[in-house]
């Protein structure tokens, strides 16, 4: 049952992120509705856009946020729910469309407004996008370590960098 839901959800580009987030609602998300997830994915992508290097969408930042909203960020659930609704409402009012359907310029305009008027939500999603993009993949974002590769940081960070300075130096395989 869960498997089928996942495959169905896999059709949408956003839901690619759900390969890690099994369980949760119909679309495979833990907290977001499928529509919310698409909006969040688009917002995150404006915060850290793809260019010569992958952006928030490729890093599956929305997956990170979805997972954490059912864990350490539970207390932020309401802020997200209202914040996303606010962004959607603003898009409809100004341009008559859902956020994901807006042009990049229009999306930036809506988000710049949110930065001013919806501070609590915007500051959260800004911080969480950075975490999901630059943080450890184990938490559901930074898929394929795209940001670490961008910064030229070979993985994994756990190992010592120096291997030859001291004779007989311990270096785990």
């Amino acid at each position, binding site marked *: 049952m869960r498997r089928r839901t996942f495959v169905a959800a896999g059709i949408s580009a956003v839901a690619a992120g759900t390969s890690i987030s099994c369980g949760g609602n119909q679309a495979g998300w833990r907290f977001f509705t499928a529509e919310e997830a698409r909006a969040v994915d688009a917002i995150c992508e404006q915060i850290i856009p793809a260019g010569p290097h992958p952006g928030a969408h490729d890093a599956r930042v929305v997956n990170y946020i979805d997972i954490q909203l059912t864990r*350490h960020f539970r207390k932020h659930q309401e802020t997200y729910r209202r914040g996303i609704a606010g962004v959607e409402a603003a898009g409809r009012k100004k341009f008559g469309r859902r956020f994901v359907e807006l042009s990049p310029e229009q999306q930036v305009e809506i988000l710049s407004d949110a930065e001013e008027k919806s501070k609590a939500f915007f500051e959260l999603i800004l911080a969480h996008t950075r975490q999901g993009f630059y943080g*450890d993949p184990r938490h559901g974002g930074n898929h394929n370590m795209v940001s670490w590769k*961008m910064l030229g940081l070979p993985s994994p960070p756990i190992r010592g*960098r120096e*291997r030859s300075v001291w004779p007989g130096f*311990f270096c*785990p395989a």
Partner: protein
Amino acid sequence: MSGQGGGFLPMPLKHVNAVIVGAGAGGGVAAKELASAGLSVVLLERGKWYSAADCRKDDLRNQRTTVLGNGFGPDDERNPRVLVEGKRETIVWPSEGGYSNNAACVGGGTFSYGAQSWRYMEQDFRMRSTYGAVPGSTLEDWPITYADLEPYYEKAEWEMGVSGDVANNIFKAPRKKPLPMPPLPPSREHQVLLPAAKRLGLHPFDIPMLRNTVPYNGRRACMRCRWCVGFACETNARTGTHNTVIPAALATGNCAIRTECMTREVLLDGRGRSRGVAYIDAAGHLQEQTADLVIVSCGAVESARLLLNSRHRLFPGGLGNRYGWVGRNLQSHTYPAVTGLFETETYDDLGPGASIAICDYNHGNPGLAGGGMLANEFIRLPYQFMGQVPPWIARWGAEHKEFVRNAYRRTISVMGPVQEMPMFAARVELDPKVKDYWGIPVARLSGSKHPHTLDIARFMAEKAEAWLKEAGAAQTWRRMPGPSLSGGQHQAGTCRMGNDPKTSVVDRDCRLHDVDNVYVIDAGVHVTNGGFNPALTILANAYRASERLVNAWKGSRAHS
């Protein structure tokens, strides 16, 4: 043991000579010194005992970046505090700013710290005599001098193991022995900053570190991870009380450690002497550990809280608090930070980072009551780097991402711990309403920084900036501290040591003025906190206070 919960007392525990509350820096050393002298000791720790295998280098959940919680305690579920800012009161949790967390685990802060191991300077012990009264500050001299502490600094350095090379630090206080281990080979950052400091006529040197650079004391040498501070050490090369004095205390056979035991109060008999402590064990049972001596080593905030929670007919305002000084003078360090952007790469991926320092501005700065050391920062995590992006870069979008990509490997940060002017109003109290998971009233923090502390921070930022510019930084920018209360990892001062019972909590031997068998041995007793990271001073003072306690001990000894 009985399965009954709350309030039910199971079998009485065996009486011991000393119960030590808190297995951190101060408590760890005290346990080893007392147990080695033949006293029977129980060491209570509210946190867990993590091992080197807990080195998971989780960059979002460690002791420094806590967006997903603290790596090494306390947990967010059970440990609230209340923060008072002006008229605003908020319940804060350990992973949030404003909580003033250090750690909750065996080793305390020393389990995951950066391991800079500084001796304070001579002037740091007599700030009042050096600079006179500072209006609005409780700036005071310590009741002991640097000379009193010197042998114990040496003991901590050699017994636990410190690396580094302070020969070029012409400002250092007199010392008898060099450090037992050499510094790590210089990183690229170090090589950029060293000649620049010399050109400026400054006196750069290798930071002393409680970190093995060669095998020492049966533990390995550092392998230079990218990420060190805030994480467990995979090789055990970084030195804390958890891998030195605490195992040594246990090896004597005279010391038992009990983890996940939350101490609720110091118990008193009818005459106002202590008879032990009450704590809630890992299974949730209330226990009484009776002892001849009680040593409070919970870290500055929690030690004050424990004393205040120990009320008695004779001490209605809490233990040691006859004159209202417990919890006062909460202080830490104020950090101005400057980041410089270089044309070429300064990043070489060789941890741990911080390695070069100057003490040219700790004292003798015109018009200022003190100063602080300046050093390069530990290797920054990519997410941490967000906090170092300059204010003129857009906060989101392609510009921000491009800046991070371009600058990450070309920036150096220089910062330093400014010695703070203590404030009587910066304090720990008990919150009248909020209780923790165990039903114990929590710490309520209030107060702010002294304005002169911020003056010194501005001066230090100028000096850091000049150093980076001389090193070739094309651009520099500052991150300046605000006036809000200082606590956190370098928390100190809440159980001030002094000769006058009316203006201090413990005497020069770290014994409560009020009760002759209760001691405080941790950063709480610091009168002032030096312009340096505090751990080595906490360790040295713990060796000193323990020695005096043992010398004065007239009770039984198991074997010594």
